[in-house]
């Protein structure tokens, strides 16, 4: 049976249940911890490390660390802010993010977290890798230039759509998003209403003919920072 326990995040005591992941407990209690690969409808992945917090002084990914009674957690301090920025900046330089014409700009979670953390420019040199755009599917575009390999589409296709359209292939710097077909996305059984399309945080998976409908200034994150429904800080 799950017991009610108390944990402390940035000096605020919150109630949760044993085994609940720290990030979920925080969000449920109205405290925002920045995150990217985590999606509330999907099992956690623990890969992007943006949600890193200090648990009793140790750095842990809050999306995959179960809460225990009495845990003392720091999320909002200068060191963690800098680490989170570093992770986000790496995601920018290792892909090709041309926000000025990206269909997702203004409602992209990568961009929104970068805005919220106050990133003006990445500290790392841009890599400008050669990546493909796969427009073979009649309804969907897959732009590998913008894929941050968060695995959300992989989990959603597996767990919610009961398909296995996507997978993360190879390892380390060579990791890329693969599709379950000989050549390209058009050969898979992906369909336009798949949850996998819904959960992509960036402009990597896009439904065709839906772009640029909302004027600049009225898009989701133009005026309102991501997570502002929650209290917490950076």
């Amino acid at each position, binding site marked *: 049976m799950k017991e009610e326990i108390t944990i402390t995040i940035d000096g605020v005591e919150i109630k949760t249940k044993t085994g609940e992941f720290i990030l979920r407990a925080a969000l449920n209690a109205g405290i925002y911890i920045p995150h990217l690969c985590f999606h509330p409808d999907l099992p956690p992945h623990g890969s992007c490390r943006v949600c890193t917090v200090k648990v009793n002084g140790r750095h842990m990914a809050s999306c995959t660390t179960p809460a225990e009674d009495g845990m003392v957690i720091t999320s909002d301090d200068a060191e963690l802010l800098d680490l989170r920025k570093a992770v986000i900046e790496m995601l920018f330089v290792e892909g*090709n*993010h*041309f*926000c*000025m*014409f*990206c269909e997702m*700009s*203004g409602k992209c979670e990568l*961009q929104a977290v*970068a*805005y*919220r953390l*106050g*990133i*003006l*420019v*990445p500290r790392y*040199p*841009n890599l*400008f*890798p*050669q*990546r493909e755009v796969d427009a073979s599917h009649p309804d969907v575009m897959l732009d590998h*230039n913008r894929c941050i390999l968060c695995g959300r589409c992989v989990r959603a296709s597996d767990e919610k759509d009961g398909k296995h359209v996507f997978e993360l292939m190879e390892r380390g710097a060579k990791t890329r998003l693969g599709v379950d077909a000989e050549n390209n996305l058009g050969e898979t059984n992906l369909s336009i209403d798949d949850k996998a399309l819904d959960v992509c945080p960036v402009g990597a998976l896009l439904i065709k003919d839906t772009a640029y409908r909302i004027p*600049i200034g009225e898009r989701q994150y*133009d*005026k309102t*920072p991501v997570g502002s429904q929650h209290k917490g800080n950076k």
Partner: protein
Amino acid sequence: MTEKPKVATASLAGCFGCHMTLLDIDDRILSLIDLIDFDKSPIDDIKELGDCTVGLIEGGVSNSENLETLREFRRKCTILVSMGDCATSGGIPAMRNTVPLKECLEEAYLNGPSVVDGVIPNDPDLPSILDRVYPCHEVVKIDYHLPGCPPSADSIWAVLNFLLSGEENLELPYELIKYD
């Protein structure tokens, strides 16, 4: 009368959109003129760069001339600012960075659908093109970054005012940090 701080601007590999937005501060430009003197800039056509308090750079570094200009600005300006996405990240011109330079030149000057009797330009008077487009801070030290394509007139105004105020830490409000 004490001398007013000098501000110079340059457009490297950019589209002049950032400069247009600088003019878009509308009547605030009158207060700006009270605060500063413009030095070398495309908006006044002064040819020689003098010693300046602030240099605003639009555009990334795409050829040898951009490189020279940027280095000269770095030498002559106390505070150098990357203005706009091309300066901070390479921007649209940097789209060529994912294509080998040879292929880019061949497509533009030899194989493009509108090319007739093409030849790749090779005049010694032309600046030579670099292997790729570099954000300014990958070439010289940049003191402040103002992303945006273009940055809004409000954010350019905020940065200029901040720089002229001599305060220490620039914290742009949320609405003024944009990458598009």
